[in-house]
């Protein structure tokens, strides 16, 4: 039912009656609560929200949300979510996925959903490990990483999720640590508001099988020095003392210190998330120091549904077929008496 007055929700309205069964201390709890807090800020009705997941720890997510949801099969959530959104474009559709679900078994769907730019939101829980099957290497595990299926060290080079996503044509990509709920909440709201497929990568710590894998990036005492939190229109500046920044030196990003070698804030790059050309965004997602977080790319483009809708309207306006009978009895028919 349509209501005229906007409903005021709190995070409790989005909390289901199911007991959350992730391991104690898992960052998944942070993401869950951030989502439950973000939804009231999105101005969307609870019955219009759908969470779709595949298989993996992260994919239990829909059970904990008091919205519509489907916990589906490994890797296929983008396909299923696409069907939900195309069937009813009014819905706010979320894909909750992990590094294995999205980039190993579901790699094909992952790249194609980004290419199409359907207005879906994808939250990628990247913990660089397989958790639910108890500790094998994933497509984002590092070379040399020792896991249950690589006891002598992983020999498969990893994907950088942002690099893969931008290569596949992603219009919106954000990356955020798994320990900063307020930032996650804000980015989720922006992902919702973005028209088109938005991908949010959360650097999510797995306390059991890959504990501390992001410590040197996300820990409170290092994050300001090791991360650059990008904001559209703002200079690329980072560091506890806000004295470091990024400049372009030939074809590479270079870290500089303000005040050294005559560098001032004016010399730093200014972040343009809305730029169509993803070259600089690609350089940012690949950067190992500092690690780029925040909304790295947010390029407004026509969505798949908008294209389809425009075509449908055009075909409808020009068609002589209003009902199927018009079609069935059209063209070459003949009568037997």
């Amino acid at each position: 039912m349509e209501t005229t007055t906007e409903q005021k929700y709190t995070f409790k309205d989005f909390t289901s009656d199911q007991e959350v069964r992730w391991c104690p201390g898992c960052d998944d709890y942070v993401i869950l609560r951030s989502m439950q807090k973000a939804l009231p800020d999105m101005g969307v009705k609870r019955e219009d929200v759908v969470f779709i997941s595949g298989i993996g720890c992260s994919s239990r997510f829909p059970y904990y949300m008091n919205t519509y949801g489907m916990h589906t099969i490994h890797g296929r959530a983008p396909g299923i979510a696409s069907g939900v959104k195309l069937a009813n474009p009014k819905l706010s559709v979320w894909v909750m996925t992990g590094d294995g679900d999205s980039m190993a078994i579901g790699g094909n769907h992952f790249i194609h959903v980004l290419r199409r730019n359907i207005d879906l939101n994808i939250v990628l829980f990247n913990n660089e490990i397989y958790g639910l099957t108890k500790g094998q290497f994933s497509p984002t595990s590092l070379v040399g990483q020792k896991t249950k299926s690589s006891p002598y060290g992983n020999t498969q080079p990893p994907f950088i999720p942002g690099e893969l996503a931008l290569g596949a044509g992603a219009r919106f990509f954000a990356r955020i640590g798994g320990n900063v709920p307020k930032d996650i909440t804000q980015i989720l709201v922006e992902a919702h508001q973005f028209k088109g497929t938005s991908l949010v990568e959360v650097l999510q710590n797995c306390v059991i099988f890959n504990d501390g894998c992001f410590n040197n990036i996300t820990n409170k005492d290092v994050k300001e020095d090791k991360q650059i939190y990008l904001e559209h229109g703002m200079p690329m500046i980072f560091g506890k003392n806000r004295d470091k920044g990024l400049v372009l030196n030939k074809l590479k990003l270079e870290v500089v210190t303000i005040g050294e070698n005559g560098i001032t804030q004016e010399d730093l790059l200014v972040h343009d998330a809305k730029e169509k050309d993803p070259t600089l965004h690609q350089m940012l997602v690949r950067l190992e120091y500092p690690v780029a977080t925040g909304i790295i790319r947010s390029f407004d483009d026509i969505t798949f549904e908008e294209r389809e809708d425009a075509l449908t309207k055009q075909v409808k306006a020009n068609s002589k077929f209003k009902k199927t009978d018009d079609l069935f009895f059209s063209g070459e028919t003949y009568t037997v008496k």
Partner: protein
Amino acid sequence: MISDKVKLQPEVVEAVVIRFVGDSGDGMQLTGTQFSDTSAMFGNDIATFPNYPSEIRAPQGSLYGVSGFQVHIGSVEVSTPGDNLDLLVAMNPAGLKTNLHALKPGHTIIVDTNSFSKKNLEKALYETNPLEDNSLENYRVIQVDMTSLTKEALKDVDGLDNKSITRSKNMFALGMVYWMYGRSRDYTIDFFNKKFKSKPNLIEANTKVLNAGYFFAETLELIPNSYTISPAKMRPGTYRIIMGNTATAWGFLAAAEKSGLELFLGSYPITPATDILHELVKHKHFGVKAFQAEDEIAGIASAIGASFAGDLAITTTSGPGLALKGEALGLAMIMELPLVVVNVQRGGPSTGLPTKTEQSDLLQAMYGRNGESPVIVIAASTPANCFEYAYEAAKLTLEHMTPVILLTDGYIANGSAPWKIKSVDDLGEIHPRISKNASENWHPYDRDEKTLARNWAIPGTEGLEHRIGGLEKDSITGNVSQAPKNHEKMTKIRAEKIKRVQNYIPEIKTEFAETGDLLVIGWGGTYGSLHSAVKQISEEEGYKNIGFAHFNYINPLPKNTGELLTKFKKIIVCELNNGQFAKILKINYSGFEFLQFNKIQGLPFGNNELIEEFKKLVD
């Protein structure tokens, strides 16, 4: 030139079979379609059978590159494309070599002599030219320099390259056959005018060549060996010629309109199912959402998503694609969502024989998923009834809340036949089980007492927010439950739900004898072949002890199946596989001996082989 070693004694018969063969680029499908459509307009009953290679343009002149189109036209009901040919039109030596065996002795071959070059003869593995070595003396051979005559006819048409000129020689052959069978050229000329609207020189060229062939035959006074003149006695009504795949697509259009839902197709191209996608993408005016996905899995996945969100969702594929969809189909099954999977069967296993027909996916449809996962399985049996079984598949899935697999096959999907057009007003009601209002005791797995179908709560409906998934769920709330007894209960409910569909489908009926010595059983796309064989043996050869039962409902089987089996001394199950339906019958009805007649050649049954087999069993 006409060889006159065979004396022509034209006779009027009830039905004739004509086959057009040539290179896969020779336009044989178009030629055949034009002839069959024109004959249908004339009032004949028709059945057609395209037989083409899997290569798009196989090397010219090769034996495996031969493309053929067979049409059976009758002044009586025809239910198959026919076995033995009354007329063979061969555009090259390879076509002659691979198709001559099907021509009735004494009957006519039309050949394009220009194509019987040394090179083409070698490619067709002829050591000597069959037009010169007397090997065709038992046939009436009409040798026509078709390529030269086509060039001559087009010498005054501007703007044609050599390729366009030679490519239109198929219209010369068509013109000849039109004259021989007294058919009008109007329908085809009208077709040129529409197809080449923006290329007037092609309209002119094709019309000229068609006319040239027509007048050529007139000048030679070419008379066919056998011809049929009078229109068939068909039930009054408005008809159109329809291909099985189009009929399938239209059945879903009708079901969407009738049920008040929007139609969603998630699909990935695969032979021979792709024409359903081609058809449905055209119909945006009805709000059809046809989504070409990145692979077979995304095809079914998107359909499952659309179903959850309240559309009438379907996915279309062929054997290998069904294998890829298996896991997702199991998901739809455990989530108890409506979904139709169309499998247009082709020769398997693996890539198999992509353009040939077979019925070998039956067991895959029945059992090709992990766990206990029964679904409804039904099969269409003629090109035209693909419409009603697509409609029925949609109705069953929406009313029983379980996936339905609709089996057709390459033979009926590509074949065409007259369809007595059904208005949507005359189709049965469809009642989707949509929950509209929240009530306090509502649960996603509340069931209808009679059908056991659960409720369908669609996102956007306030108060019915719920989660479903592939994990086993509690029998009432739908929440995840791994409780041992609950799992057993749910497994049995899902099986019982399929079984109860028996109460909503028609009983199986026999045709011809109702009791007797032999019951011929078939299912799916073989209806035409089996029906015409049993008809011939019963009506023309006086066997009154043979009954025929053809199954469209496979899972569940019709209620009275067991009873039917008791009425005959012998039972033979005929299928284009190695005995898959026979296996299903054996599992369900012990105590009967199920004889088998199986053909696994990528081809439909022939009339003669069936009749011979049936006679052996009753004589």
